[in-house]
């Protein structure tokens, strides 16, 4: 009984995902087909990658609200330098990744040295990055990217490139979190900052790295989205930061910090992808979809809290 409960606690995200998949395959015959599954994975890849970055900041006890704007800004900058300035595609993409990482690092600087609360620092960055995107694009899409860029929005055989990117990102970020000192200290900082400091760990370094990492993940998301849309859109990824937080929480992370996994977060992102796709196939209006998504979110978090509270040893 105790072990069953432990399994429930540990895998509740995956059970919810499994439940939704079974439910929708009963509702719609078109749901459980190879092409639809690949479609869901493709649709969820952007959210998955970005949410992994947000998960890192949440594990550290912080948050990152700027990722949606960073996705848009990185897309605009990389597309802009390629289309307007004739920079080569690899160089343009590399520049985009650097810009995203750098702006994430600035979030870290505000948090560590400015002693701003992460919510405040990244809320400001959210506004700044969106504003810079609008300035840079003059509010208009940048298109004409060329095949080398849109490759990231295409498929290799039946497999969308975005899914390959997501898989690589999940594998690397999971190893970083579970096998390296940085990962261990990330959990430690989120669990008890003071204890970590007294153990001689550079808490500031860990935090700076965390926000830079989140910026890098947003940048990868920006490239993926721009390649998929064949253009950089100034209003792209609006509200993505909230979906990323939702995926992280669905994945079992605690907003208090110290807890969370990349795999869980990806499962959280898939839950949201499956919901959107399944509700579409079932013909539910998009207005009503939001009500359902919100309700499922609350139910999932309540379930998680309930199982965890029951499993606390006394």
């Amino acid at each position, binding site marked *: 009984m105790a072990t069953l409960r432990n399994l429930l606690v540990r895998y509740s995200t995956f059970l919810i995902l499994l439940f939704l998949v079974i439910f929708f395959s009963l509702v719609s015959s078109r749901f459980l087909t190879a092409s639809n599954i690949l479609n869901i994975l493709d649709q969820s890849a952007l959210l998955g990658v970005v949410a992994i970055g947000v998960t890192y900041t949440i594990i550290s006890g912080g948050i990152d609200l700027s990722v949606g704007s960073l996705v848009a800004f990185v897309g605009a900058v990389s597309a802009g330098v390629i289309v307007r300035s004739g920079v080569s595609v690899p160089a343009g993409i590399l520049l985009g990744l650097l810009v995203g990482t750098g702006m994430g690092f600035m979030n870290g600087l505000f948090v560590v040295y400015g002693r701003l609360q992460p919510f405040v620092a990244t809320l400001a960055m959210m506004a700044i990055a969106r504003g810079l995107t609008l300035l840079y694009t003059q509010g208009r899409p940048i298109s004409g990217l060329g095949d080398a860029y849109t490759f990231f929005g295409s498929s290799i055989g039946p497999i969308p490139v975005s899914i390959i990117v997501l898989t690589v990102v999940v594998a690397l970020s999971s190893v970083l979190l579970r096998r390296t000192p940085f990962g261990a200290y990330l959990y430690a900082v989120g669990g*008890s900052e003071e204890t*970590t400091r007294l153990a001689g760990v550079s808490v500031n370094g860990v935090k700076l790295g965390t926000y830079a990492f989140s910026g890098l993940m947003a940048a990868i998301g920006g490239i993926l989205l721009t390649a998929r849309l064949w253009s950089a859109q100034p209003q792209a990824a609006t509200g993505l930061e909230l979906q990323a937080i939702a995926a992280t929480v669905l994945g079992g992370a605690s907003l208090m910090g110290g807890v969370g996994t990349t795999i869980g977060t990806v499962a959280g992102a898939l839950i949201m992808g499956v919901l959107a796709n399944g509700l579409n196939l079932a013909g539910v209006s998009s207005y009503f979809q939001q009500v359902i998504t919100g309700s499922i979110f609350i139910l999932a978090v309540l379930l998680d809290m309930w199982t965890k509270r029951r499993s606390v040893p006394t």
Partner: protein
Amino acid sequence: MQYSLKMQGIHKYFPGVHALNDVSFAVHAGTVHGVVGENGAGKSTLMKLISGSLTPENGTIEVFGEAVSFRTPAEAQRHGISMIHQELSVVPARSVAANIFLGREPRMMGGLFIDYGELYRQADKILKRLNIDVDPTQPISGLSIAQQQMVEVAKALSYNARIIIMDEPTSSLTERETETLFKIIRDLRSEGITVIYISHRLEEIFSIVDRVTVLRDGKTIRTDAISDLDEAAVVHSMVGRTIDSVFPKRDVPIGETILRVEGLSGNGFRDVSFTLRTGEIVGVSGLVGAGRSEMARGLMGIDPITGGSIEFLGVDAGAPQVSGMMRRGFAFVPEDRKSEALFLGMSVRDNLVISLLSRIFRSGFVKARHLADVTSEYIEKLRIQTPSQMQLIRNLSGGNQQKVIIARCLALSPTVLILDEPTRGVDVGAKAEIHTIIGDLAAQGVGIIMISSELPEILGVSDRVLVMKEGRLAAELNRDEASQDTIMQIAATGGAA
């Protein structure tokens, strides 16, 4: 005999307090050395000097004959000194092994990765050495407090500690867990490690330490082999002062019983029964962790109770809730002023009237004029020193802050006032004023329950004294039966003097 630690002529000052006054402290290598004293005697300050959290103003510290001066805990650690704090410092969701080696994990592949296999092996080795039956891979939050404490000992050993300081290590342990800890302490001693053991509990001191140092009011009173002492001698050295006239007790007519508590139980206290009459001041004494605050919080409805009954003015109060108890006429001054009583960023006036608002403004709108009148009335009555009503309360002295909190309670015209450590961190002058206020309230017929760790205060102010020990009511003493020695004897040993 070699000394592992030798301190001489140590002085430490805090604003307004001479915390350590010419303290000398020497510990023989490979022994268990007890440190005892009342709350506020300077034990914690002394330990913080040894472990590098604080630096003394004067005096010398030698560790194994080498003169040292620690600026950080890390420096002390490098000299083989580890401290296990009363509040354990762990990263809850991480494994036992990760907690032990936090910041010093074994690496592999050129330092890029943590060698978790090696980490668990090393942790397992240390745990085995201490005979601690804990899986190093499991999250530390899944362990009992006692097991977490053992892990802290393992952590200290992993730093190659030669001196381990334990601050009240048994405060949250059961008797059996205490026995296990003692066994580990004896094992450490047989390996030549010095253990400095701080405790309030004399029975533990007598069963585990080789030598003991008694501190009182920031001074070393004595250091002796435990075999040369008995409990009465230690108790006398701990309290050893006479009550001065700082606590003028007023004769107040005591009326009828207003509160009858029967078998009250909750987290940290069990089966507590007592009564309170109008105009009566009941002091609650006991060691830190004896369940005094927990009992008061249960009575006030702040924390849930698990059993017992509260009868107030002849009516059963049921399961208490804070707001309900306050409407009935209870008021509470909590122990931790900063986090539980004050709104640091708000003005004196806003702090004072917060509980009053919904009571006097039934329409739902606040009249500032009225609040200003109430506030100036209490500023005058309690002689609160503040430049204005709108002064932020964080800028007031501790004594004046406390008076504002008491005024907040008085504005509700309570029938029962519960005070938890009302004069902690308050200077002597304000202390006497607070005692006068308490006396005046009793004279007006308010029933008062006062928790205090200061025996002179308890003895000076109370009509009756309840002594708590390990969550239970150990004794109820009348004013003429109570003395420092009897109370300390009951609180620390449970036996009669």
